[in-house]
């Protein structure tokens, strides 16, 4: 468990980092942020990056701010930064609750939000958040920058639209309306393990009916995603008009689950229904507490 030789670059400005990355990315150079996935993979010799561009010394990338109704999360903001709400209203509480499900405390103190998005593990909580809430991912390169919607950024399991010479510099999340509610449900074998299945649900109740329901699932398919058919079952109705069992059944039907040696597609399909129903239940309960 000793990584193969590599050269470590420690730029202090984004321009410098992009210049180095531009030089080394063709031979497999990678960006190092929290390193909580990358470094173990190097130690296991699953990946052999000959260069690492460490962006932790680039001060502006640690920025976390609310501007124009958007929460901006810089590339080196750690998971643990969200343990306490970083923004007023439901979003801060949502991120705080979800952050507690990410791995273990030491990992949360080092791993980053944007690093999780870039790694694009199917069971990543932040990828689920990004897809469900509609994050925008800001990429920089020597040629300039571009902004991708989460839907365009995630391409497959462990795969994103980021080009090798690009750095994810920040992600922006829309601040949720104060009246919105959310619910999160995750099932895993042990505390801190990758989710076998999870769901994040948000909606608002306006005039007694559900508005803008978002129902995301993660850990079930190759990428987290929203379930539009299940969302449609909730939209514009009283929340009590939809049976949890019906939501669960619809979620099971809508997903196309992964299969692996320990977990069959059938199990994951069933679990999708369970976590969706539970997340909706949690959102309803949260709403009830507020009312």
């Amino acid at each position, binding site marked *: 468990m*000793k990584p*193969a030789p590599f050269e470590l670059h420690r730029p202090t400005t984004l321009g410098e980092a992009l210049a180095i990355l531009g030089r080394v990315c063709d031979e497999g150079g990678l960006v190092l942020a929290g390193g909580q996935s990358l470094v173990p993979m190097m130690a296991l*010799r699953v990946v052999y990056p000959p260069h690492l561009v460490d962006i932790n010394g680039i001060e502006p990338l640690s920025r976390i701010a609310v501007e124009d109704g958007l929460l901006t999360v810089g590339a080196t903001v750690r998971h643990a930064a969200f343990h306490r709400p970083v923004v007023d209203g439901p979003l801060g509480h949502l991120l705080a609750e979800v952050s507690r499900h990410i791995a273990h405390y030491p990992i949360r103190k080092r791993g980053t939000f944007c690093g999780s998005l870039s790694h694009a593990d199917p069971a990543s909580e932040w990828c689920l958040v990004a897809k469900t809430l509609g994050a925008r991912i800001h990429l920089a390169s020597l040629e300039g920058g571009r902004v991708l919607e989460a839907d365009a950024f995630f391409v497959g399991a462990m795969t994103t639209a980021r080009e090798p010479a690009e750095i994810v510099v920040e992600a922006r999340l829309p601040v949720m309306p104060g009246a919105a509610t959310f619910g999160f449900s995750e*099932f895993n074998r*042990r505390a801190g393990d990758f989710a076998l299945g999870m769901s994040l649900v948000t909606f608002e109740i306006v005039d007694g009916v559900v508005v803008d329901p978002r129902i995301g699932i993660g850990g079930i398919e190759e990428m987290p995603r929203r379930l539009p058919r299940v969302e449609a079952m909730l939209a514009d109705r009283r929340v009590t008009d939809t049976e949890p069992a019906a939501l669960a059944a619809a979620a099971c039907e809508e997903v196309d689950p992964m299969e692996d*040696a*320990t977990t069959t597609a059938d*199990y994951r399909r069933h679990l999708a229904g*369970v976590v969706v129903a539970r997340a909706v239940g949690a959102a309803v309960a949260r709403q009830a507490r507020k009312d």
Partner: protein
Amino acid sequence: MQPLRPTRYIGKSVTRLEDRPLLTGAARFVADLDFPHQLHMRVVRSAHAHGRILGITTTEASALPGVVAVWTAADLGDLPPIPIRATAIQGLPPYRQPILARGRVRYVGEPVAVVFAESAYGAEDAADLVVADIEPLEPYLDVCRAPAEFAPGLTSEPTIIRKGYGDVDAAFQRAHAMVALDLSVGRHSAIPMETRGALARHDRARDVLELHGAAKRPHWNRDQLAEMLSMSPARIELYENHVGGGFGVRGEIYPEDVLVCVGARRLGRPVKWIEDRREHLLSANQSREQHHRIRAAVDAEGRFLAIDETLLHDQGAYVRTHGARVADMTIGLLLGPYRVPNYRAVAHYRLTNKTPAATYRAPGRFEGSFVRERLIDAIAQRLDLDPLEVRRRNLIGSAEMPYVRGLTALETEVILDSGDYAGLLEKALVWSGWQAMSRQAAARRAAGEAVGVGFGMFVEKSGLGPSEMVHLTVHADGTVEVVTGASSLGQGMETAIAQIAADTLGVDYRSIRVLHGNTNRIAFGFGAHASRVTVMTGEATRRAAEAVRAKALAFASELLQRDAAALDVVDGTVVAREGGGPSITLGQLAAQLAPASGSRGDREPGLAGTAWFHSKHMNYPYGVHMAQVAVDRETGGVKVERYCVAYDVGRAVNPAMIEGQIVGGLAQGLGGALLEEFLYSEDGQPLSVTFADYLTLTAREMPPVAVLITEDAPSPLNPLGLKGAGEGGVNAAGAAIASAIDDALQVAGLVARLPATPQYIRSRLRELEGGAA
């Protein structure tokens, strides 16, 4: 003046002597050791589960700067394979593991080449460059299928072990009812915090080969290495350092232990190898994978008439040091605390293309207790009886002790030495509040939760012989040195042995220094395994201390002009029993017994003694596990809410340490019951080679545990009545958890396989409820 009374240490939870270095960071594990000019070794491992080796190219690796040597099997000459500890079971030698693969590879992770380099990084870089050209062969992975070919002319079933007595077929014919189960336990093993490691150097000044990082069986390993390397045992020294957990897997001879020795001798430089976690999960002994087809014939009251058992044992790719012991002991000890008039067991010992298997804490008993207790639950279900009542009716009575089983295990006749199984059961039920637990679980079920309680009874075994020797020496400063050939795996043996020596001798236990695990300090030793150290070394220590005490009192009686019977040893000083008068310390007596001391006279120099303890029979502690679980019906997730273990240890030397053994063992038992499993793909690729895939229990999953230690049945096989405590915490965890899950879901026999993962529980619910779940 008040007479002084000796302080008693046996039975007290005194603090552990070994903790200071462990808690202050002064401990020295093998990875902490370095010798000047040492080389680092890296093993190149097979990526194929089964294949023919067409060639291994090492040129590129050898050319890397800092690489000193790269060897394959061809470079090892006629180095013999990994040895087997002899048993009566024949036919195993052709299946031993070569130090480096020869001709074929038989599991992913099998050593095929070895690199020696100036740095650990360089060694790993070079290992990456070794190219093994392997023609894949069909792997054999499922012992429920007919055996395959191990090598031309050799099947993958080296032996079939048969045990039993009575007329099983006749018993089945007259049975009131018959119950048959098909049960299995998944492959899992010990995950010590410290991985394996070895550091060898050839000390040319003394012409001695030193091996640091020894554990468990230093003397046997020394003798075997001597034979393999054609050296005299007098020229090999094994050193035990601090050990971060053994549990059966550490301290056996593995290819790496041999390779560091060969490397150090041939290359003339010390060679260090520290196993990484992935290697541990690929190459250290695995355990537990068994399939059981078991049938019981019972009368109308649920009493056993006969048990008919077929075991399919997955040994992995090779026979290692333990031979077929685990399979043998599984069927030899399967019957636990119950009276079974007729018994027939057949163990098919089969090799598969997986990591080789051997012992893991409570080997054969974790599995056997799961199977036996599932069987009892099934009988109760079948006859509509209370499972506790069925157990009571079948328990061997205390008046029947010693109870001759008519079976063997670990090359000894199984004779249950002492026990009051029914007595402990009743005590445990009251102590744990079992009835209230059951009632509360039922009430919660009525309210819609899936909560249940489960139960498992077991008999452990401990105190395996054949022998142990102790040298005990009192130094002039009063320090007492106890040298034993047993070893420490961190279990607290130094403290337990010190407590026994202190009580016998009449000294403070803190004045005792216990030395162990170093072959250059003592000629014989049988190590630390099979819950034997407190019993074997403990009794040898007591005997040595008796002899030293007698010598001290005889000498003091002359010096103090008192009758020896009127003297006592109190806190290291010989005093008059009635109090007052002159006294002399053991240290002063030791000084006067120095070889050159004028007052020694014709006495043997030194206040010292040596004693042996020999034992042909194991002794048998026993216990009860009780679990309360809550199952999430929708996900299949299991939360263990509460756990109780009652254990009769015969004589508790240090209750706190016994409790620690039980709780620690339980964490491993619960891991095996719910979480841990080495999985393999259809082509034999191991899938559990990181901690993200091999799930050990963590603090979050560990329930509150209550432990009741009793001393109702001291062993008649040693004067202190000692029995072992190393494995009782693991033993019936699978049994109790399975039973509790059944109860929670109100589906008898739901758990037929361990670990009971959420995925498994869901699939069983669907299967048993016809897809309704």
